[in-house]
Protein backbone atom coordinates (compact mmCIF):
# COMPACT_ATOMS: atom_id res chain seq x y z
CA UNK A 1 0.00 0.00 0.00
CA UNK A 2 1.40 3.31 -0.99
CA UNK A 3 1.26 5.92 1.72
CA UNK A 4 -0.30 9.11 0.45
CA UNK A 5 -0.15 12.53 1.92
CA UNK A 6 -3.18 14.69 2.38
CA UNK A 7 -3.07 18.04 0.75
CA UNK A 8 -4.72 21.17 2.04
CA UNK A 9 -6.04 23.50 -0.61
CA UNK A 10 -7.60 26.86 -0.18
CA UNK A 11 -10.33 27.23 -2.74
CA UNK A 12 -10.85 30.94 -2.51
CA UNK A 13 -11.13 33.66 -1.30
CA UNK A 14 -9.98 34.66 -4.77
CA UNK A 15 -11.24 31.94 -7.01
CA UNK A 16 -13.26 31.93 -10.21
CA UNK A 17 -16.14 29.86 -8.94
CA UNK A 18 -16.68 30.69 -5.31
CA UNK A 19 -19.38 33.20 -6.21
CA UNK A 20 -17.67 36.00 -4.35
CA UNK A 21 -15.08 36.19 -1.66
CA UNK A 22 -15.64 32.84 -0.12
CA UNK A 23 -13.04 30.40 1.02
CA UNK A 24 -13.22 26.68 1.34
CA UNK A 25 -10.45 25.05 3.26
CA UNK A 26 -10.35 21.70 1.55
CA UNK A 27 -8.35 18.71 2.63
CA UNK A 28 -7.90 16.33 -0.25
CA UNK A 29 -6.57 12.84 -0.55
CA UNK A 30 -5.60 12.77 -4.20
CA UNK A 31 -8.67 14.34 -5.69
CA UNK A 32 -11.08 13.12 -3.04
CA UNK A 33 -12.31 15.51 -0.41
CA UNK A 34 -11.78 14.33 3.12
CA UNK A 35 -12.71 17.55 4.84
CA UNK A 36 -14.10 20.92 3.91
CA UNK A 37 -14.53 23.96 6.06
CA UNK A 38 -16.29 27.00 4.71
CA UNK A 39 -14.65 30.23 5.80
CA UNK A 40 -16.32 33.53 5.19
CA UNK A 41 -16.74 36.99 6.57
CA UNK A 42 -14.61 38.71 3.95
CA UNK A 43 -17.60 40.75 2.90
CA UNK A 44 -18.86 41.31 6.41
CA UNK A 45 -20.00 44.87 6.93
CA UNK A 46 -22.18 44.35 9.99
CA UNK A 47 -25.29 45.01 8.05
CA UNK A 48 -27.41 44.50 11.16
CA UNK A 49 -25.50 47.12 13.09
CA UNK A 50 -25.82 49.59 10.23
CA UNK A 51 -29.53 48.94 10.22
CA UNK A 52 -29.79 49.86 13.87
CA UNK A 53 -28.54 53.39 13.26
CA UNK A 54 -30.81 53.94 10.26
CA UNK A 55 -34.49 54.64 10.27
CA UNK A 56 -36.84 51.95 9.07
CA UNK A 57 -37.14 53.44 5.64
CA UNK A 58 -33.44 54.03 5.28
CA UNK A 59 -32.87 50.32 5.65
CA UNK A 60 -34.83 49.55 2.53
CA UNK A 61 -31.99 50.20 0.08
CA UNK A 62 -29.64 48.28 2.34
CA UNK A 63 -31.77 45.19 2.03
CA UNK A 64 -31.22 45.42 -1.72
CA UNK A 65 -27.59 44.77 -1.08
CA UNK A 66 -28.09 41.60 0.88
CA UNK A 67 -28.79 39.33 -2.01
CA UNK A 68 -28.14 41.57 -4.93
CA UNK A 69 -29.67 39.13 -7.35
CA UNK A 70 -33.06 39.32 -5.70
CA UNK A 71 -33.38 42.81 -4.36
CA UNK A 72 -37.13 42.75 -4.87
CA UNK A 73 -37.56 39.69 -2.70
CA UNK A 74 -35.45 41.24 0.02
CA UNK A 75 -37.49 44.42 -0.14
CA UNK A 76 -40.61 42.35 0.16
CA UNK A 77 -39.50 40.51 3.26
CA UNK A 78 -38.42 43.69 4.97
CA UNK A 79 -41.54 45.58 3.98
CA UNK A 80 -43.72 42.78 5.30
CA UNK A 81 -41.83 42.74 8.57
CA UNK A 82 -42.19 46.48 9.13
CA UNK A 83 -45.79 46.48 8.04
CA UNK A 84 -46.51 43.70 10.48
CA UNK A 85 -44.74 45.60 13.22
CA UNK A 86 -46.39 48.93 12.53
CA UNK A 87 -49.76 47.61 11.42
CA UNK A 88 -49.74 49.12 7.94
CA UNK A 89 -52.34 48.01 5.43
CA UNK A 90 -51.27 47.29 1.87
CA UNK A 91 -53.71 47.92 -0.99
CA UNK A 92 -54.59 44.99 -3.15
CA UNK A 93 -53.05 46.39 -6.27
CA UNK A 94 -49.79 47.00 -4.48
CA UNK A 95 -49.77 43.41 -3.29
CA UNK A 96 -50.21 42.19 -6.83
CA UNK A 97 -47.41 44.38 -8.09
CA UNK A 98 -45.19 43.12 -5.31
CA UNK A 99 -45.89 39.49 -6.05
CA UNK A 100 -45.37 40.13 -9.74
CA UNK A 101 -41.97 41.61 -9.06
CA UNK A 102 -40.97 38.86 -6.69
CA UNK A 103 -41.98 36.13 -9.09
CA UNK A 104 -40.04 37.81 -11.88
CA UNK A 105 -37.15 37.86 -9.47
CA UNK A 106 -37.50 34.15 -8.97
CA UNK A 107 -37.28 33.49 -12.69
CA UNK A 108 -34.33 35.81 -12.94
CA UNK A 109 -32.53 34.22 -10.05
CA UNK A 110 -33.04 30.66 -11.20
CA UNK A 111 -32.02 31.49 -14.76
CA UNK A 112 -28.84 33.01 -13.44
CA UNK A 113 -28.25 30.33 -10.84
CA UNK A 114 -28.57 27.50 -13.35
CA UNK A 115 -26.27 29.33 -15.71
CA UNK A 116 -23.66 29.81 -13.04
CA UNK A 117 -24.03 26.22 -11.95
CA UNK A 118 -23.35 24.96 -15.44
CA UNK A 119 -20.50 27.41 -15.66
CA UNK A 120 -19.05 25.87 -12.54
CA UNK A 121 -19.27 22.54 -14.27
CA UNK A 122 -17.02 23.98 -16.91
CA UNK A 123 -19.32 24.98 -19.71
CA UNK A 124 -18.05 27.99 -21.48
CA UNK A 125 -20.83 30.36 -20.48
CA UNK A 126 -23.36 29.44 -23.11
CA UNK A 127 -26.04 28.40 -20.65
CA UNK A 128 -25.09 31.36 -18.51
CA UNK A 129 -25.39 33.67 -21.48
CA UNK A 130 -28.86 32.35 -22.24
CA UNK A 131 -29.89 32.78 -18.64
CA UNK A 132 -28.39 36.23 -18.47
CA UNK A 133 -30.23 37.22 -21.61
CA UNK A 134 -33.58 36.44 -19.99
CA UNK A 135 -32.39 38.08 -16.83
CA UNK A 136 -31.56 41.24 -18.74
CA UNK A 137 -35.07 41.38 -20.11
CA UNK A 138 -36.52 41.14 -16.64
CA UNK A 139 -34.06 43.70 -15.39
CA UNK A 140 -35.23 46.01 -18.14
CA UNK A 141 -38.71 45.70 -16.74
CA UNK A 142 -37.46 46.36 -13.24
CA UNK A 143 -35.61 49.37 -14.48
CA UNK A 144 -38.67 50.86 -16.09
CA UNK A 145 -40.70 50.31 -12.94
CA UNK A 146 -38.25 51.06 -10.17
CA UNK A 147 -35.50 53.04 -11.85
CA UNK A 148 -32.69 50.61 -11.21
CA UNK A 149 -31.76 47.22 -12.50
CA UNK A 150 -30.30 45.57 -9.47
CA UNK A 151 -30.70 47.80 -6.45
CA UNK A 152 -34.37 48.32 -7.11
CA UNK A 153 -35.43 49.82 -3.78
CA UNK A 154 -38.93 49.57 -5.13
CA UNK A 155 -40.99 48.65 -2.09
CA UNK A 156 -42.28 51.07 0.48
CA UNK A 157 -44.23 50.47 3.62
CA UNK A 158 -47.78 50.09 2.44
CA UNK A 159 -47.07 49.52 -1.21
CA UNK A 160 -44.51 50.24 -3.88
CA UNK A 161 -42.87 53.50 -4.75
CA UNK A 162 -44.66 54.13 -8.00
CA UNK A 163 -47.17 52.42 -10.18
CA UNK A 164 -46.18 50.36 -13.17
CA UNK A 165 -45.38 52.50 -16.20
CA UNK A 166 -47.62 52.28 -19.24
CA UNK A 167 -45.29 50.18 -21.33
CA UNK A 168 -44.71 47.66 -18.57
CA UNK A 169 -47.58 45.31 -19.23
CA UNK A 170 -47.06 44.94 -23.01
CA UNK A 171 -43.41 44.19 -22.45
CA UNK A 172 -44.23 41.75 -19.70
CA UNK A 173 -46.60 39.93 -22.02
CA UNK A 174 -43.86 39.79 -24.65
CA UNK A 175 -41.55 38.38 -22.04
CA UNK A 176 -44.06 35.71 -21.14
CA UNK A 177 -44.11 34.64 -24.76
CA UNK A 178 -40.37 34.08 -24.67
CA UNK A 179 -40.21 32.54 -21.23
CA UNK A 180 -41.56 29.04 -21.97
CA UNK A 181 -39.37 28.81 -25.03
CA UNK A 182 -36.40 29.80 -22.96
CA UNK A 183 -37.20 27.33 -20.20
CA UNK A 184 -37.72 24.54 -22.69
CA UNK A 185 -34.48 25.35 -24.36
CA UNK A 186 -32.67 25.38 -21.05
CA UNK A 187 -34.22 22.05 -20.25
CA UNK A 188 -33.10 20.61 -23.55
CA UNK A 189 -29.61 21.82 -22.82
CA UNK A 190 -29.53 20.57 -19.26
CA UNK A 191 -31.91 17.77 -18.72
CA UNK A 192 -30.64 14.97 -20.90
CA UNK A 193 -27.12 16.05 -21.55
CA UNK A 194 -25.02 13.02 -20.66
CA UNK A 195 -22.09 15.05 -19.45
CA UNK A 196 -24.27 17.13 -17.22
CA UNK A 197 -26.00 14.04 -15.90
CA UNK A 198 -22.68 12.52 -15.05
CA UNK A 199 -21.66 15.66 -13.27
CA UNK A 200 -24.85 16.11 -11.33
CA UNK A 201 -26.43 12.74 -10.66
CA UNK A 202 -25.61 11.47 -7.22
CA UNK A 203 -23.44 14.46 -6.43
CA UNK A 204 -23.89 16.37 -3.21
CA UNK A 205 -26.72 14.27 -1.89
CA UNK A 206 -28.61 15.74 1.04
CA UNK A 207 -31.19 13.25 2.33
CA UNK A 208 -34.58 14.45 3.46
CA UNK A 209 -34.15 14.21 7.22
CA UNK A 210 -30.73 15.71 7.11
CA UNK A 211 -31.98 18.59 5.01
CA UNK A 212 -34.54 19.42 7.68
CA UNK A 213 -32.03 19.04 10.47
CA UNK A 214 -29.68 21.35 8.63
CA UNK A 215 -32.39 24.00 8.32
CA UNK A 216 -31.75 24.43 4.63
CA UNK A 217 -34.49 26.17 2.73
CA UNK A 218 -35.71 26.91 -0.71
CA UNK A 219 -34.92 24.80 -3.75
CA UNK A 220 -32.22 22.92 -1.86
CA UNK A 221 -34.76 21.73 0.71
CA UNK A 222 -37.36 20.93 -1.89
CA UNK A 223 -34.85 19.00 -3.98
CA UNK A 224 -34.37 16.79 -0.95
CA UNK A 225 -38.02 15.86 -1.11
CA UNK A 226 -39.55 18.21 1.44
CA UNK A 227 -42.44 20.10 -0.07
CA UNK A 228 -41.90 23.13 2.10
CA UNK A 229 -42.57 26.42 0.43
CA UNK A 230 -43.29 29.45 2.59
CA UNK A 231 -45.73 30.61 -0.05
CA UNK A 232 -47.78 27.52 0.69
CA UNK A 233 -46.83 26.78 4.26
CA UNK A 234 -47.64 30.21 5.60
CA UNK A 235 -49.14 32.21 2.77
CA UNK A 236 -48.28 35.88 2.89
CA UNK A 237 -49.22 38.75 0.63
CA UNK A 238 -51.72 37.44 -1.93
CA UNK A 239 -50.12 34.08 -2.57
CA UNK A 240 -53.23 32.27 -1.42
CA UNK A 241 -55.00 33.51 -4.53
CA UNK A 242 -52.83 31.73 -7.05
CA UNK A 243 -52.68 28.19 -8.27
CA UNK A 244 -49.20 26.87 -8.45
CA UNK A 245 -47.41 23.63 -7.74
CA UNK A 246 -44.49 22.87 -5.53
CA UNK A 247 -41.82 20.83 -7.31
CA UNK A 248 -39.83 18.46 -5.15
CA UNK A 249 -36.96 16.16 -5.89
CA UNK A 250 -36.60 12.55 -4.93
CA UNK A 251 -32.92 12.05 -4.28
CA UNK A 252 -31.62 15.40 -3.17
CA UNK A 253 -28.60 15.66 -5.43
CA UNK A 254 -27.42 18.42 -7.72
CA UNK A 255 -29.55 17.07 -10.55
CA UNK A 256 -32.69 17.35 -8.46
CA UNK A 257 -31.82 20.92 -7.62
CA UNK A 258 -31.51 21.70 -11.29
CA UNK A 259 -34.85 20.08 -12.04
CA UNK A 260 -36.58 21.82 -9.16
CA UNK A 261 -35.28 25.18 -10.27
CA UNK A 262 -36.40 24.64 -13.84
CA UNK A 263 -39.88 23.70 -12.66
CA UNK A 264 -40.04 26.63 -10.27
CA UNK A 265 -39.47 28.97 -13.18
CA UNK A 266 -42.50 27.41 -14.88
CA UNK A 267 -44.58 27.81 -11.76
CA UNK A 268 -43.51 31.43 -11.42
CA UNK A 269 -44.63 31.99 -14.95
CA UNK A 270 -48.01 30.51 -14.04
CA UNK A 271 -48.29 32.92 -11.13
CA UNK A 272 -47.36 35.86 -13.32
CA UNK A 273 -50.05 34.90 -15.81
CA UNK A 274 -52.62 34.82 -13.03
CA UNK A 275 -51.42 38.20 -11.83
CA UNK A 276 -51.88 39.67 -15.27
CA UNK A 277 -55.45 38.38 -15.23
CA UNK A 278 -56.26 39.62 -11.77
CA UNK A 279 -54.32 42.86 -11.63
CA UNK A 280 -56.83 45.07 -13.50
CA UNK A 281 -59.52 44.18 -10.96
CA UNK A 282 -57.36 44.81 -7.94
CA UNK A 283 -58.52 47.49 -5.56
CA UNK A 284 -56.54 50.47 -4.43
CA UNK A 285 -53.50 52.20 -5.73
CA UNK A 286 -49.88 51.32 -5.76
CA UNK A 287 -49.40 52.53 -2.20
CA UNK A 288 -51.50 53.06 0.85
CA UNK A 289 -51.78 56.86 0.95
CA UNK A 290 -52.21 56.80 4.72
CA UNK A 291 -49.00 54.91 5.31
CA UNK A 292 -46.28 57.09 6.72
CA UNK A 293 -42.89 56.20 5.43
CA UNK A 294 -41.20 57.53 8.52
CA UNK A 295 -42.73 54.81 10.63
CA UNK A 296 -42.61 54.77 14.39
CA UNK A 297 -43.89 51.30 15.24
CA UNK A 298 -45.08 50.38 18.71
CA UNK A 299 -42.76 48.55 21.05
CA UNK A 300 -42.54 44.88 20.26
CA UNK A 301 -40.82 42.28 18.15
CA UNK A 302 -41.81 40.62 14.93
CA UNK A 303 -40.51 37.95 12.63
CA UNK A 304 -41.64 37.93 9.04
CA UNK A 305 -40.43 35.76 6.26
CA UNK A 306 -40.89 35.24 2.57
CA UNK A 307 -39.91 32.55 0.14
CA UNK A 308 -37.02 34.30 -1.52
CA UNK A 309 -35.69 32.50 -4.61
CA UNK A 310 -32.84 31.19 -2.51
CA UNK A 311 -34.96 30.09 0.40
CA UNK A 312 -36.61 31.41 3.47
CA UNK A 313 -35.64 35.03 3.99
CA UNK A 314 -36.74 36.31 7.36
CA UNK A 315 -36.42 39.57 9.22
CA UNK A 316 -36.55 39.70 12.98
CA UNK A 317 -37.22 43.24 14.15
CA UNK A 318 -37.41 44.62 17.64
CA UNK A 319 -38.88 48.08 18.01
CA UNK A 320 -38.28 50.33 20.95
CA UNK A 321 -40.92 52.77 19.81
CA UNK A 322 -38.53 55.08 18.00
CA UNK A 323 -38.00 55.59 14.31
CA UNK A 324 -35.07 53.22 14.25
CA UNK A 325 -35.16 49.47 14.74
CA UNK A 326 -33.70 48.41 18.03
CA UNK A 327 -32.71 45.07 16.62
CA UNK A 328 -32.68 44.00 13.03
CA UNK A 329 -31.77 40.45 12.28
CA UNK A 330 -31.67 38.89 8.87
CA UNK A 331 -32.24 35.20 8.51
CA UNK A 332 -30.35 34.85 5.28
CA UNK A 333 -31.10 31.75 3.20
CA UNK A 334 -27.69 31.58 1.54
CA UNK A 335 -26.00 31.67 4.91
CA UNK A 336 -27.97 28.82 6.39
CA UNK A 337 -27.89 26.78 3.20
CA UNK A 338 -24.12 26.79 3.45
CA UNK A 339 -24.19 24.89 6.71
CA UNK A 340 -24.29 21.40 5.18
CA UNK A 341 -21.66 22.19 2.53
CA UNK A 342 -18.89 20.38 4.35
CA UNK A 343 -20.92 17.23 4.77
CA UNK A 344 -22.32 17.35 1.28
CA UNK A 345 -18.85 17.54 -0.23
CA UNK A 346 -17.04 14.95 1.83
CA UNK A 347 -16.17 11.92 -0.25
CA UNK A 348 -16.57 13.64 -3.58
CA UNK A 349 -13.94 15.05 -5.89
CA UNK A 350 -12.44 18.52 -6.03
CA UNK A 351 -14.38 19.21 -9.19
CA UNK A 352 -17.63 18.40 -7.39
CA UNK A 353 -17.06 20.98 -4.70
CA UNK A 354 -17.70 23.89 -6.99
CA UNK A 355 -20.69 22.14 -8.48
CA UNK A 356 -22.23 21.47 -5.09
CA UNK A 357 -21.53 25.03 -4.06
CA UNK A 358 -23.11 26.26 -7.26
CA UNK A 359 -26.17 24.10 -6.70
CA UNK A 360 -26.74 25.69 -3.30
CA UNK A 361 -26.80 29.03 -5.08
CA UNK A 362 -25.29 31.45 -2.63
CA UNK A 363 -24.68 35.16 -2.82
CA UNK A 364 -21.91 36.33 -0.60
CA UNK A 365 -23.55 39.66 0.07
CA UNK A 366 -26.18 37.77 1.95
CA UNK A 367 -23.91 35.22 3.57
CA UNK A 368 -21.51 37.72 5.06
CA UNK A 369 -23.97 40.51 5.66
Amino acid at each position, binding site marked *: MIKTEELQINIGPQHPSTHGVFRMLVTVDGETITDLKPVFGYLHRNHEQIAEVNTYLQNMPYTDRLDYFNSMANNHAYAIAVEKLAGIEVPERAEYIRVLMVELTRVLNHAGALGFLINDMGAWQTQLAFGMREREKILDLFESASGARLMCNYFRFGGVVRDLPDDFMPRLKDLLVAMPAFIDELERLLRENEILLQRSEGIGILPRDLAIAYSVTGPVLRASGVAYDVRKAEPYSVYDRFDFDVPVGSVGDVYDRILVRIEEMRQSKRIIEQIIEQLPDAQGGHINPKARQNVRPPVGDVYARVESPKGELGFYLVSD*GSTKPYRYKV*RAPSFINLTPLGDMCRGYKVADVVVILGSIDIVMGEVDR
Partner: protein
Amino acid sequence: MPHLRAEDLREMLGRDLPGAVQDPSPLQIVPPPSHGPQHGSFVTGDALIDPSRILEAALYMRDTLGYTYLSDIAVTDYLTDGLLEVVYRFYHVDGGPSLALKARLPRENPALPSLTPDWPGANFHEREAFDLYGITFVGHPFLRRIYMWDEFEGFPMRKDFPKQGDKYIGEDE
Protein backbone atom coordinates in the same frame (compact mmCIF):
# COMPACT_ATOMS: atom_id res chain seq x y z
CA MET B 1 -51.49 22.60 8.90
CA PRO B 2 -50.69 22.72 12.61
CA HIS B 3 -51.73 25.91 14.31
CA LEU B 4 -50.22 26.07 17.73
CA ARG B 5 -50.23 29.49 19.26
CA ALA B 6 -47.61 30.84 21.58
CA GLU B 7 -50.01 30.60 24.53
CA ASP B 8 -50.68 26.95 23.78
CA LEU B 9 -47.00 26.29 23.66
CA ARG B 10 -46.45 27.99 26.99
CA GLU B 11 -49.19 25.98 28.51
CA MET B 12 -47.95 22.69 27.11
CA LEU B 13 -44.39 23.39 28.15
CA GLY B 14 -45.57 24.35 31.60
CA ARG B 15 -47.43 21.09 31.83
CA ASP B 16 -44.82 18.77 30.38
CA LEU B 17 -41.61 20.44 31.47
CA PRO B 18 -42.40 21.85 34.87
CA GLY B 19 -40.18 24.69 35.88
CA ALA B 20 -38.80 25.33 32.42
CA VAL B 21 -41.07 28.20 31.54
CA GLN B 22 -40.35 31.49 33.20
CA ASP B 23 -42.61 34.45 33.59
CA PRO B 24 -41.43 37.15 31.24
CA SER B 25 -40.67 40.40 32.96
CA PRO B 26 -41.45 43.51 30.95
CA LEU B 27 -38.55 44.89 29.01
CA GLN B 28 -37.76 48.57 29.07
CA ILE B 29 -35.50 48.31 25.98
CA VAL B 30 -34.36 51.96 26.08
CA PRO B 31 -34.14 54.29 29.04
CA PRO B 32 -37.35 56.28 29.35
CA PRO B 33 -37.02 59.64 27.64
CA SER B 34 -36.75 62.65 29.89
CA HIS B 35 -39.52 64.37 28.00
CA GLY B 36 -42.03 63.54 25.35
CA PRO B 37 -44.21 60.45 25.10
CA GLN B 38 -43.15 57.48 27.14
CA HIS B 39 -42.50 54.22 25.34
CA GLY B 40 -44.45 51.33 26.63
CA SER B 41 -42.57 48.43 28.07
CA PHE B 42 -42.40 45.24 26.10
CA VAL B 43 -43.84 41.98 27.37
CA THR B 44 -43.13 39.08 25.09
CA GLY B 45 -45.88 36.64 24.30
CA ASP B 46 -43.51 33.82 23.45
CA ALA B 47 -42.44 31.10 25.79
CA LEU B 48 -39.56 32.22 27.94
CA ILE B 49 -37.42 29.27 28.91
CA ASP B 50 -34.92 28.83 31.65
CA PRO B 51 -31.56 29.04 29.78
CA SER B 52 -30.26 25.83 31.31
CA ARG B 53 -33.26 23.89 30.01
CA ILE B 54 -33.38 25.29 26.51
CA LEU B 55 -32.11 22.06 24.97
CA GLU B 56 -34.78 20.11 26.76
CA ALA B 57 -37.47 22.46 25.56
CA ALA B 58 -36.13 22.40 22.01
CA LEU B 59 -36.11 18.63 21.94
CA TYR B 60 -39.65 18.70 23.27
CA MET B 61 -40.59 20.93 20.39
CA ARG B 62 -38.98 18.57 17.94
CA ASP B 63 -39.93 15.19 19.28
CA THR B 64 -43.30 15.81 20.87
CA LEU B 65 -44.76 18.65 18.88
CA GLY B 66 -43.09 17.88 15.59
CA TYR B 67 -41.59 21.31 15.14
CA THR B 68 -38.48 19.86 13.57
CA TYR B 69 -37.34 22.82 11.63
CA LEU B 70 -35.12 25.25 13.50
CA SER B 71 -35.30 28.32 11.35
CA ASP B 72 -33.51 31.04 13.18
CA ILE B 73 -31.60 31.93 16.29
CA ALA B 74 -31.65 35.66 16.94
CA VAL B 75 -29.97 37.44 19.79
CA THR B 76 -30.97 40.86 21.07
CA ASP B 77 -28.96 42.90 23.50
CA TYR B 78 -31.26 44.70 25.91
CA LEU B 79 -28.67 46.97 27.42
CA THR B 80 -31.05 48.90 29.65
CA ASP B 81 -32.49 45.74 31.07
CA GLY B 82 -29.05 44.24 31.37
CA LEU B 83 -29.73 41.03 29.55
CA LEU B 84 -29.34 39.23 26.28
CA GLU B 85 -32.33 37.51 24.81
CA VAL B 86 -31.96 34.56 22.48
CA VAL B 87 -34.90 33.70 20.24
CA TYR B 88 -35.14 30.21 18.79
CA ARG B 89 -37.66 29.97 16.05
CA PHE B 90 -39.18 26.63 15.09
CA TYR B 91 -41.41 25.60 12.25
CA HIS B 92 -43.41 22.56 11.47
CA VAL B 93 -42.56 20.99 8.15
CA ASP B 94 -46.26 20.77 7.37
CA GLY B 95 -46.49 24.51 7.42
CA GLY B 96 -48.10 27.02 9.69
CA PRO B 97 -46.74 29.90 11.71
CA SER B 98 -43.66 29.74 13.82
CA LEU B 99 -43.21 29.03 17.48
CA ALA B 100 -40.49 30.80 19.35
CA LEU B 101 -38.57 29.90 22.43
CA LYS B 102 -36.82 32.70 24.22
CA ALA B 103 -34.09 32.56 26.77
CA ARG B 104 -32.67 35.44 28.75
CA LEU B 105 -29.07 35.52 29.74
CA PRO B 106 -26.95 37.85 31.81
CA ARG B 107 -24.69 40.09 29.81
CA GLU B 108 -21.62 38.90 31.69
CA ASN B 109 -20.36 35.50 30.50
CA PRO B 110 -23.57 34.36 28.88
CA ALA B 111 -23.73 30.66 28.20
CA LEU B 112 -26.30 28.32 26.72
CA PRO B 113 -26.36 24.66 25.89
CA SER B 114 -25.66 24.19 22.20
CA LEU B 115 -28.28 22.79 19.87
CA THR B 116 -25.75 21.93 17.20
CA PRO B 117 -25.28 18.26 18.15
CA ASP B 118 -29.00 17.76 17.63
CA TRP B 119 -29.64 20.31 14.92
CA PRO B 120 -26.61 20.67 12.71
CA GLY B 121 -28.43 23.62 11.20
CA ALA B 122 -27.89 25.57 14.41
CA ASN B 123 -24.17 25.54 13.78
CA PHE B 124 -23.76 28.82 11.95
CA HIS B 125 -26.46 30.55 13.94
CA GLU B 126 -24.67 29.76 17.15
CA ARG B 127 -21.31 30.72 15.77
CA GLU B 128 -22.79 34.00 14.67
CA ALA B 129 -24.29 34.60 18.10
CA PHE B 130 -20.91 33.82 19.63
CA ASP B 131 -19.12 36.08 17.22
CA LEU B 132 -21.34 39.09 17.49
CA TYR B 133 -22.72 38.80 21.01
CA GLY B 134 -20.25 36.64 22.87
CA ILE B 135 -22.67 33.93 23.91
CA THR B 136 -20.88 30.69 24.66
CA PHE B 137 -22.72 27.63 23.46
CA VAL B 138 -21.63 24.74 25.61
CA GLY B 139 -21.15 21.62 23.56
CA HIS B 140 -20.70 23.28 20.20
CA PRO B 141 -18.11 21.34 18.22
CA PHE B 142 -16.44 24.29 16.51
CA LEU B 143 -17.27 27.49 18.31
CA ARG B 144 -15.13 30.01 16.48
CA ARG B 145 -15.73 33.47 15.19
CA ILE B 146 -17.58 33.28 11.91
CA TYR B 147 -17.52 36.80 10.48
CA MET B 148 -14.83 38.61 12.38
CA TRP B 149 -11.28 37.36 12.38
CA ASP B 150 -10.20 35.20 15.25
CA GLU B 151 -8.08 37.86 16.91
CA PHE B 152 -10.90 40.36 17.04
CA GLU B 153 -11.65 41.69 20.50
CA GLY B 154 -15.11 42.52 21.66
CA PHE B 155 -18.54 41.64 20.38
CA PRO B 156 -19.57 44.14 17.74
CA MET B 157 -23.32 43.75 17.86
CA ARG B 158 -23.56 44.50 21.55
CA LYS B 159 -25.08 47.84 22.22
CA ASP B 160 -22.13 49.02 24.27
CA PHE B 161 -19.59 48.25 21.56
CA PRO B 162 -18.04 51.57 20.59
CA LYS B 163 -19.52 52.84 17.36
CA GLN B 164 -16.72 55.28 16.70
CA GLY B 165 -13.05 54.64 16.29
CA ASP B 166 -11.45 51.47 15.12
CA LYS B 167 -8.29 50.29 16.70
CA TYR B 168 -7.65 47.92 13.82
CA ILE B 169 -7.29 50.73 11.37
CA GLY B 170 -3.95 52.44 11.51
CA GLU B 171 -1.83 49.53 12.59
CA ASP B 172 -0.85 48.57 9.09
CA GLU B 173 -1.62 51.68 7.19
